[in-house]
């Protein structure tokens, strides 16, 4: 795989004094979709802005195709947070034409692509509507389409699903997959929507307080924490809680039942120990739930561990 972007020991300290990005390094490869995750204020938007030269690093270098990036690069396009980046008083097509002109591209060279994308996003009937009259989701789709139709190799999407309904999220998701697959572009997405990242991205980078704390494929992330969360509910008996106290589980005693919950990986001892304790005490089991872990839980766990270390 060929690296398109190499972020090398980049630090950004805003003139106001905030250290938003603290010595972060990563690579972005061709045709891949990468998620940038982190809690509010982690530094995701700052990383996006650093990538597209909307701000400068205070330390470190950014390489594009192994060349040091000194100025803004035309191989990167961006859609920043929310439904902005468009002229509200122009129509969809007028916006597209104007933005293309700014990039020195003739509209006539892109008409088929534009039509295709508008149709794909179900907004082809809106091309002559004023952007200001469109819904938030439609505006977001237009902004993404504009970012797609130039000659860029990397599309940066900052919170592309913010405030969108389920259907629009799916449309955007499909569009992003289409970008990577059919248009051979790489996509970097920041989002708080873990399900969206989980189903869209192949890889994720997790940021907390300006530092990179984890980087892996989404699959690996999930197996790394290949835990299931297990909850067992059984009838209460005298002193039965004591039997479970020596095990590493959460016990929640109710009036006539006891809840025991724990998380475990496949074949973890804890699972069998709990089952044995249940058997030895002849507990009458009412309910067992056994659920898969998702990226969100992984994310929360990583962030929790990171905060714990500090």
């Amino acid at each position, binding site marked *: 795989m060929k690296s398109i972007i190499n972020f090398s020991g980049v630090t950004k300290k805003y003139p106001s004094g905030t250290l938003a990005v603290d010595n972060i390094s990563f690579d972005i490869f061709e045709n891949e979709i990468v998620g940038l995750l982190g809690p509010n204020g982690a530094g995701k938007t*700052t990383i996006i802005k650093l990538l597209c*030269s*909307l701000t400068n690093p205070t330390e470190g270098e950014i390489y594009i195709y192994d060349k040091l990036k000194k100025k*803004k690069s035309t191989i990167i396009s*961006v859609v920043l947070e929310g439904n902005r980046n468009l*002229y*509200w*008083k122009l129509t969809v097509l007028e916006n597209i034409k104007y933005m293309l002109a*700014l990039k*020195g591209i003739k509209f006539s060279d892109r008409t088929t692509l534009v039509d295709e994308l508008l149709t794909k996003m179900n907004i082809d009937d809106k091309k002559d509507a004023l952007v200001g009259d469109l819904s938030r989701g439609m505006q977001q789709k237009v902004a993404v389409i504009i970012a797609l139709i130039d000659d860029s190799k990397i599309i940066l999407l900052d919170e592309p699903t913010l405030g969108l309904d389920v259907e629009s999220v799916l449309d955007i998701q499909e569009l992003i997959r289409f970008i990577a697959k059919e248009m051979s572009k790489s996509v970097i997405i920041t989002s708080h929507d873990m399900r969206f990242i989980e189903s869209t991205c192949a890889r994720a980078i997790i940021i907390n307080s300006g530092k990179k704390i984890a980087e892996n494929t989404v699959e690996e992330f999930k197996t790394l924490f290949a835990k299931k969360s297990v909850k067992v509910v059984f009838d209460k008996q005298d002193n039965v809680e004591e039997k479970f106290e020596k095990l590493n589980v959460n016990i929640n005693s109710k009036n006539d039942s006891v809840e025991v919950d724990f998380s475990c990986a496949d074949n973890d001892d804890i699972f069998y120990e709990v089952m044995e304790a249940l058997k030895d005490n002849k507990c009458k089991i009412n309910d067992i739930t056994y659920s898969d872990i998702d990226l969100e839980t992984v994310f929360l766990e990583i962030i929790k561990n990171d905060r714990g270390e500090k």
Partner: protein
Amino acid sequence: MLLVANFKKELIMFKRYLFNSLGGVITLYILFLCMFYGYNAATSLPTDSTNTDFMVVYYAFWMLALFVYQDMVYSIQEESKLGTLEQIYMSKFSLARIIVSQNIAKLLVNITLLFVVIFAIMATTGKWLHFDLFSVSVIVLLAVVNLFGIGFIFGGLALIFKKIENFLQIVPYCILGVFLVPVGSNPFLKLIPTAWEVRILGNIMVGGISIFDLSAMDWFFLVVPSIVYFVIGLAIFNKCEKVAVDRAVLGKH
């Protein structure tokens, strides 16, 4: 291509908001008539006085100056809010170049409107000024270069400081002040932005001279300050752009 694209955009906006645009023209027209007849009534000067002739020229110039600086500042503020400023910045041209191109396009539309207003005013008041199109165009062009320089300074500030409206309210009065500068008394006063252009424009349109009647010294004070202001304005704008990028505040937050 950039200029064409911007010009198309302005024409679209002009047509789309035609009612609004025409409203603006009519307001400018009425405002002048009020001033004109009000001034005459107050001073009870004979209406053929050259003073009132100069009023037409000054008024036209005042509007021109206001157009340039308002377009510069307000379009930057609006684009910052919309987030389009960040997109513009990412394009293949420099920000300053795009801003100039956008503002030339806006100005072409505005100057056309201005001509309509001036002709309407001249027709109503019966005061026909000399309209040596070539001479007027050259002087207006030099004045515009000068005004762009000043506009760049305010535009640059608008990139960094998101709330400069209050500060900007004094600008129209500063422009009025320029008309009152006794440029003849001291050559240094001719360095005040556009002060000399306004005076020459008056001499052309009221006095009926042509730019070929101007002395080398006149030309010096027309051309050099314009270019110097433009270059200084541009440098300040670029510096402000750098500061705004360091602070990551091209888009409003």
